[in-house]
């Protein structure tokens, strides 16, 4: 079946602009995660959704970052007033449910470049 999909695959933007990154989880997966992968910081957990519940925002690096999940499925990560340090690959993952026994399946990522 289809895996986690993300769009766009690449995004180049100018400093100060807003960007939206999209994630389509595997059908039937209720848990959804966003991570960021950058050269300096490695892989970092950003935010987590379980179904329609309010997200855990504890990993978001600043208040310029926000995320929503509509209908318990598709998620959008929004970065406002982008900065050069936001340049990274943003990875989305989904799992069947919250819980330690559920494998997280990762999408191919969106490479964001802020000029």
């Amino acid at each position: 079946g289809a895996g986690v999909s993300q769009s766009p695959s690449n995004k180049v933007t100018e400093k100060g602009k807003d960007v939206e990154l999209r994630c389509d989880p595997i059908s039937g997966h209720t848990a959804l995660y966003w991570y960021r992968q950058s050269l300096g910081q490695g892989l970092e957990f950003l935010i987590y959704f379980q179904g329609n519940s309010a997200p855990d925002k504890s990993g978001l690096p600043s208040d310029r970052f926000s995320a929503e999940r509509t209908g318990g499925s598709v998620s959008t990560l929004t970065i406002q007033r982008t900065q050069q340090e936001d340049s990274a690959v943003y990875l989305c993952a989904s799992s069947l449910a919250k819980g330690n026994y559920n494998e997280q399946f990762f999408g191919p990522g969106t490479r964001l470049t802020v000029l």
Partner: protein
Amino acid sequence: AQSVTQPDIHITVSEGASLELRCNYSYGATPYLFWYVQSPGQGLQLLLKYFSGDTLVQGIKGFEAEFKRSQSSFNLRKPSVHWSDAAEYFCAVLAAHGGGGADGLTFGKGTHLIIQP
């Protein structure tokens, strides 16, 4: 807070030789441990995981890992590497983030595996 250390940034191995990638974790409770592989332009793929029970776990592509609580380690091994194993390997621990108990993975910095012909 939990952390994962992969002490080797790069490792070069000859094709057909054995491989061991090191991973040390720091976590106050029983850890749930994972190894992921990332090939160029590809997403992260789970190789294997440890939750409980037998401390030697088998994964895909001929990989295995051994959990050693006394050493806080979860090293990845393969008896004979293939050129297609060249990739970035990440060790991760699953633990609660913040106060809500979210299950985000904490990753090590990764080990870049180079295969020599």
